[in-house]
């Protein structure tokens, strides 16, 4: 059955018809054309579809679209400022060569936004645990950790 979902996506209020059993991943990709949200496994194993819902990282492939009713959803399309300037976390990923094929990148950046949003400081090993829900086959996580560590130190230092 089709229902109307009302939520805020990247700062903009949207009302969108969705199937009852539809995952947020499909709504964002297919109905709102936010294709940065990647489908890697569809069962919550790889983290490529991570988005922030009310500031909390969730696997959008196993998060029902209707659960987002009234909530705030953030994808990387919503991270740049109005002039297109990169968010400091995006910038750190670019500068630390933390991006290779780019498929896991949007999801990990959103987890990094959540980590930074906590306002806390973390050791490198704590950050390993924090991002361990994201799989990456290209980078060995080294430069991703460098980028996340740098931005946590800069913004929460």
């Amino acid at each position, binding site marked *: 059955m089709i229902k109307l979902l009302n939520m805020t996506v990247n700062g903009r209020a949207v009302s969108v018809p969705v199937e009852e059993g539809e995952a947020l991943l499909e709504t964002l*990709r297919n109905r709102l054309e*936010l*294709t*940065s949200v*990647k*489908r*890697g*496994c*569809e*069962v919550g*194993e*790889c983290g*490529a579809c991570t988005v922030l819902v009310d500031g909390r990282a969730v696997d959008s492939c196993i998060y029902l679209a209707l659960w987002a009713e009234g909530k705030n959803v953030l*994808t*990387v*399309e919503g*991270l*740049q400022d109005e002039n297109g300037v*990169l968010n400091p976390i*995006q910038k750190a*990923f*670019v*500068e630390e*060569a933390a*991006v*290779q*094929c*780019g*498929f*896991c*990148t*949007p999801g990990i*950046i959103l987890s990094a936004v959540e980590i930074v949003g906590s306002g806390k400081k973390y050791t*490198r090993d704590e*950050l*390993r*645990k924090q*991002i*361990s*829900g*994201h*799989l*990456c*086959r*290209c*980078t*060995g*996580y*080294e*430069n*991703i*950790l460098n980028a996340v560590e740098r931005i946590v130190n800069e913004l929460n230092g």
Partner: protein
Amino acid sequence: MSVGESITRVDAVQKVTGQAKYTADLAPKNVLYAKLVHATIANGRVLSIDGGEAEKVNGFVKLVTCFDVPKTQFPTPGHPWSVEKAHQDVSDRTLLSERVRLYGDNIAVVIAQSSLAAAKAARLVKAEYEEYAPLMSAKEALAHTEHPLHEEKPDNLIAHSHFTVGEESYEQAKAEEPDCLELVKNYQTQTVQHCHLEPAQSYAYMEGDRIVVVSSTQIPHIIRRIIGQALSLPLGRIRVVKPYIGGGFGNKQDALVEPLAAYLTTVVGGKPVMVELSREENFTATRVRHAIEFDTRALVRRDGTLIARKLSAYSAQGGYASHGHSIVANSTAAFKQLYRDRKALECDAYTAYTTMPTAGAMRGYGIPQSDFATECMSDDLALMLHMDPIDFRLKNCVQAGYKDPHTGITFYSYGLEECIQKGKKAFHWEEKRKEYAHQTGDIRRGVGMAIFIYKTGVYPISLETAGARLTLNQDGSVMLQMGATEIGQGADTVFSQMTAETVGITEDRVHIVSTQDTDYSPFDTGAYASRQTYVSGMALKGAAELLKKRILDYAAEVLNRPAEELDIRQNNIVQAKDGDVLLALAKLAEEAQYSLKHSVHISAEYSHHCTDNTFSSGACFAEVEVDIPMCRVKILRILAVHDSGTLINPKLAEAQVHGGVSMGIGYGLYEEMLFNEKGKPLNDNLLDYKLPTAMDSPDMEVEFVQVEDPTGPYGNKALGEPPAIPPAPAIRNAVLNATGVAVDSLPLSPQKLFEHFVRAGLIKEEQGNV
């Protein structure tokens, strides 16, 4: 100067903002979805297929079964086509198969209006089978030939090859050297999967009588040829488009779902059809790394001189030939290339069909497998001789100027020994070996290392050819089109740097077209064999030199001076002798385009037929802590030292090494595809298949030894695959150093370590039974 600088990736901003488009992101709104129906037996034959229930699903469009598709057999591996029949790839696959050759073989496909409807309907398709026993290893398949997997190969043997080095046989050498010590070992590697984060996917539609296929592939031009073969269509009627791809690692150097997608659009009147594999399908219905078993013998003198080796390698192919025997043939070549047998090397290699997922290319193309064998063997020999394993390697490894006796490939820029010495020093090798020599207790530490050698590209085994095109824009910037593909490794960035370097402009004036479209991209065979910076780099250098010459010829006309006196530097036409700026390139470019006297559209296209090859090499060092009762290995330190010639972009080179080392760690400690006795996969998902996470990945140290290669277009040579080669044996050798236990098969999983530690008496049997 641009080559040698660590500029940021040209595609990084697109990838952090979500602007970068991958195959599924580009599918049109009205796309139909196809879902494969997979066999639920590992070996047998489909007797009948019943789609009655499937047709009732809302949104169902069409069922296509193995009985409906053309009987044409085609090859799938991403090799350049050989015009000589004897060297052509094995054509052993149809679009869907009546003969079931692996658990999950593709027997039918449902097309529906949504992916959910397609999945629902596919689940309702029923099949009846005649079932045979599964054949789970190469040796088993060679011994059981009652129901050969392919009638063309009645013994299940795809190929056998044999080579020798030296004048005499192993047995002669053994008879001549009675004082030699002999080591007899069986080394085994396991089946692993590439696990690129973007599963295999393609969609296809028709434009008139032409078929357009958009695909996540490393090899668009080769895919075009394979689709033509599969559908018996002239290649001109096929167009393949390759957007950004979410990793490949060799899996996408193969026709995976492209021929099927191309066929399916033709059965629905040219409407777009998407074939998008699930993660589970990506494990079993694409390609995996060959499991190879090595039966080896080695003879050494008591002073550590390697006298002779003899080995047989058995490679498990899976249900279809794909890259087939090329993998184990390449694999065994490392035995002759990496070490010097003073008297004899005898090598036999066999590739057998098995009822397992089809094996194909995966980062390192057989070398991670043989490197595990050679590097275990070196440490095992050194231990037998009471010799330091580094001393053993230095005494026996490949030397400067080495030339392969069969292929003629030459080690033009030798950096191996320096890599070993650099790593040895940085790792405090001697101190650590002393420190860890006499340990007791449950927690023990050790250091180990491994070396490797790897060629650059596929010459002279296969054709090496590449093309590049440059067009001067009116603003003095340059459009760059390559046939070579960006697959995450950073190709687009280093090609931009090469262009800037040779033309004489800054990188911001180079605009690379990342997408390959066979309708307009220059021809290139694609991303594999660590070839692109080398082979495609040669084509690009040729194009850039040609473009520069044409610009200077036009500048000579405008400035009324001989072209030889002119040069391009920093986006300006300058006087060659002193660099005095004469004219901005932007101004000249505008004049060239719009001149009322003589307008010229300045561009350059160049194709290069490469007849060179060279070796890369390196060493990996690992320090581990082994928790014996818990059977757990923790990596305390890992260092990769690479001899890859001149680096085009050191920061990206380092990042490439990180990823390879991580893949090597997974290969060494965690990853293995498991099957039950019926051949059904047990861990075809990312939860049960242990891909390293950030918590399993130590910080990785990277060093380079930069010896300029005289054959490389910018002194460069292979780097893409090599980092994945030596970490697994380095870790295995560190565990040997820590515990005295030699594990001869991969991975060093807790279960396997437990069995070994019990056998070695490190864990008491009673303890083990608790």
